C-alpha cells in the first residue's frame, strides 16, 4: 500500500518540475553569481528571475525587497535582532504565546539579555485580543512579531490589521509567514508589514532556503556580515540551485493558489467531518472559520499523541502531534496550553496537513483508518471504560503522585 503523507506543515515534497529547474545549477551553471565571467553572469540572471517570482507571490513592490537566507529560522532571527540593533533606544518586543520556537526561543534568550518581551495571550480558539495588543503599543517597542498562520492549528492572525496599528505608532512589524505563503493570497505592497519570513521547504521547494522580505526603507542591520551578497544585507555565497528552485516553486504556488483554497480545502473538510462523525470525544482545535485551507488539528480525548502517530505510521499514514513526550516534564504543546485545551485532550492532538498532491482516495483511507486506532488506544487507557470516558477521570484515577 502506498504511504499517505498528511504532514505538509512539517515539510513538503519538491515538485518534479522544480527539481528539473534546479539541477543544471549543480552542473553546467555552477558559477558564482558574483563572478564577471560567463559562468557567473548566467547564474546571476537566474537569481534575478527567482527574486521576481517570489516578489510576485508576495505582492511585494520591489524585487530588491527579497533577501535570500538559509531558512525560516534565520529570517526570523535576522528580523528581530535587526530591529533591536537598529533602534537601541527601544528595548521591547511584542509577540504571541503561540509562535513557533524560532521566535519564542529567541525571545526567551532576549529576556535573559535584559530585553522586555510581551507575549499576547490567545482565547480558546487561538485568537488574540486586539484591545490587549493596542494597549501594549508604546514608544519603547522595537518590533511586533506575529505569525500569519499557526503551524499546529492553521489559525490565521489578522497581521495586516496588526501591522497597520503598529505602523501608526511608528513600530516595526514582522510576520513569520512560513505556513501561510503559497496557501493564501498576499499583497505586501498594500500592507504595512515591514518584514516577513518564508521557508522554501514548506511550499514544495527544497530545504535550506528561506527568504526575508524587507520593506524598502525599513531600517536594517544584517545578521551575517561579509561579502556584498544580497546588497550587503546577508553575506555568504548564494545557494543558487535552491534559490532557482524556490523561484520556480513560488511560480507554481501562485498557479495553484485557487486550487489550494477550493480542492485542498474540500478534501480537508471531508477528512475532518469524516473522522469526527466516526470518533466520539474528539474536536477540532483552533478557529475553524478562519484558518489555512490545508490544516486540520483534531484533539482525541483520553489518548496520547505519540501512540496515535505510531499506529498511524504502521497503517502507512504520516501525520504529526503537538504533544512532545520527551522528558520528565511532559508538557503538551504550548499552542494547546495557550488555548486552554484541557489536559485530557491536549496530549492527544493530531495535525493532518494536506497538500495539492493529496488525493480523495487517500482521504477516504485515512477516514477509515483513524477510528479503530483511537478505539484500540482508549481500550488501554485508565481514563476510559467500555461505556466511554470515566465521569470524573481525575477522581476515578487517583495516582499516588501527580
Amino acid at each position, binding site marked *: 500500500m502506498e504511504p499517505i503523507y498528511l504532514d505538509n506543515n512539517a515539510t513538503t515534497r519538491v515538485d518534479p518540475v522544480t527539481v528539473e529547474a534546479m539541477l543544471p545549477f549543480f552542473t553546467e551553471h555552477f558559477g558564482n553569481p558574483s563572478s564577471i565571467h560567463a559562468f557567473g553572469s548566467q547564474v546571476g540572471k537566474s537569481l534575478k528571475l527567482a527574486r521576481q517570482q517570489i516578489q510576485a507571490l508576495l505582492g511585494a513592490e520591489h524585487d530588491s525587497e527579497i533577501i535570500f537566507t538559509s531558512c525560516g529560522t534565520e529570517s526570523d532571527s535576522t528580523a528581530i535582532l535587526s530591529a533591536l540593533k537598529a533602534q537601541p533606544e527601544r528595548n521591547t518586543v511584542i509577540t504571541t504565546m503561540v509562535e513557533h520556537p524560532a521566535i519564542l526561543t529567541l525571545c526567551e534568550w532576549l529576556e535573559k539579555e535584559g530585553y522586555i518581551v510581551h507575549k499576547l495571550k490567545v482565547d480558546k480558539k487561538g485568537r488574540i485580543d486586539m484591545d490587549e495588543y493596542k494597549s501594549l503599543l508604546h514608544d519603547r517597542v522595537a518590533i511586533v512579531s506575529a505569525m500569519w498562520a499557526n503551524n499546529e492549528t492553521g489559525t490565521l492572525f489578522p497581521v495586516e490589521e496588526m501591522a497597520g496599528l503598529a505602523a501608526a505608532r511608528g513600530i516595526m512589524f514582522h510576520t513569520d509567514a512560513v505556513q501561510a505563503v503559497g496557501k493564501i493570497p498576499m499583497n505586501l505592497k498594500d500592507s504595512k508589514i515591514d518584514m516577513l519570513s518564508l521557508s522554501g521547504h514548506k511550499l514544495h521547494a527544497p530545504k535550506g532556503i528561506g527568504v526575508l522580505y524587507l520593506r524598502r526603507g525599513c531600517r536594517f542591520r544584517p545578521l551575517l556580515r561579509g561579502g556584498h551578497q544580497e546588497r550587503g544585507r546577508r553575506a555568504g555565497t548564494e545557494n543558487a540551485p535552491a534559490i532557482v528552485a524556490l523561484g520556480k516553486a513560488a511560480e507554481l504556488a501562485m498557479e495553484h493558489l485557487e486550487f489550494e483554497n477550493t480542492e485542498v480545502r474540500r478534501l480537508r473538510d471531508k477528512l475532518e467531518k469524516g473522522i469526527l462523525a466516526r470518533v466520539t470525544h474528539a474536536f477540532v482545535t483552533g478557529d475553524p472559520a478562519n484558518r489555512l485551507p490545508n490544516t486540520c488539528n483534531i484533539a482525541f480525548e483520553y489518548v496520547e499523541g505519540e501512540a496515535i502517530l505510531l499506529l498511524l505510521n504502521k497503517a502507512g499514514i504520516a501525520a504529526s502531534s503537538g504533544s512532545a513526550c520527551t522528558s*520528565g516534564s511532559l508538557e503538551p504543546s504550548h499552542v494547546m496550553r495557550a488555548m486552554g485545551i484541557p489536559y485530557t485532550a491536549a496530549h492527544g492532538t493530531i495535525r493532518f496537513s494536506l497538500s495539492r498532491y493529496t488525493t480523495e482516495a487517500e482521504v477516504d483511507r485515512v477516514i477509515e483508518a483513524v477510528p479503530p486506532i483511537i478505539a484500540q488506544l482508549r481500550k*488501554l487507557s*485508565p*481514563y476510559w471504560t467500555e461505556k466511554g470516558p470515566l465521569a470524573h477521570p481525575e477522581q476515578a484515577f487517583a495516582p499516588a503522585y501527580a
Partner: protein
Amino acid sequence: MWEYSDKVREHFFNPRNSGPLEEANGIGDVGSIQCGDALRLMLKVDPETEVIQDAHFQTFGCGSAIASSSALTEIIKGMTLDEALQVSNQNIADYLDGLPPEKMHCSVMGREALQAAIANYRGEVWSDDHEEGALICKCFAIDAVMIEDVVKANNLNTVEEVTFYTKAGGGCTSCHEGIEEILARVKSERAGPGETSPPRQQTGTPAQTAAPATAATAATAATAATPAAPKARLTSVQRIKRIEEVLESVRPMLQRDHGDVDLVEVQGKMIYVSLKGACSGCMMEAATLGGIQQKMIEALGELVQVLPVSYMPVEA
C-alpha cells in the same frame, strides 16, 4: 523520531496483559493525565505464597510508556512480591533492549507503579519522593532537578564541577549552556533577590564572580558528603601514590572485561591515563573514566579530572 528497539515496537503494537483485572488485590496508580503519562498496575497476589499470579495494566501514554507497562507485567508474573520489589527501571529497559534517554522515565514509572501496587496489597501507604525535571544531559540521562539538587547540596559553581559530581555534561558537551543556566539560577537564589547582577553585565566565569558564601551556603557545603577534604595538603609523591592506589583498586574490574588502565601523567588537576585492551575505544570509555574519576575525587579529597591520554596537551 525515536530509535525504538524492535522489542519496544513489538510490545507497543501487541501489548501483553492490557485491560482491567477483575480479581486484582493490589492496585498501583502513578502518573497523571497532566504529565501525559499515567499507569494503573493491577496485581493478583496469592495470599499464601505472595506470588504474583497475574498482572494487568492500563496506560495512557506514548509508545514506550505502553511498551514499558507491557514488559513490566511480563517480568513480574510468577515472582514473589519480595522478588518483584528487586525489579529496577533498568531491568524494564533492558527487557525491552533499551529505551532512548528521553524515554527512560517510562521505565521509572513502571517501577513506581509496581512499588505502589505492592504497597496497596500490603495495606501500606506508598509515597513518591522522586521528582523529574526537563532532561538536560542526553548522554547520561541527567535531568534538571537532579543537577539543581546536587549544585545546591554541594555549592557547585562551574560546569566542570557539575560534571564531576553528576556526569552531566561529560559526553557530547552540547548541554553546557543548560547547565550554566541552572548554575546561574541557583547562584542568584543564593545571593537573594536584591543582590543579583543584571545578566548583561555578567562577565567572567561563575567561579570568579561567585557571591561570598553566606552562613547558610557555608553550612550546606560543610554537610556535603563528597569530597571529604583532608586538612593537610598531600605532597606530590603522596598524591601520585594515592592515584596509583585507586587505579589498582579498579584494575581487577577492568581486567575482568579484558581491559586495563595505566597512569601516564599528572598535571595539576588533570590525570591522564591510557585505557588498554577491550577498554580502549569502548563505547563505555567515558563512563569508565567517570567512575575512576569519582573514586579519585574521593581518595584525593579534591576535584580532579581523569582524561584519556589522547587529551594530553602536546609539549610546546
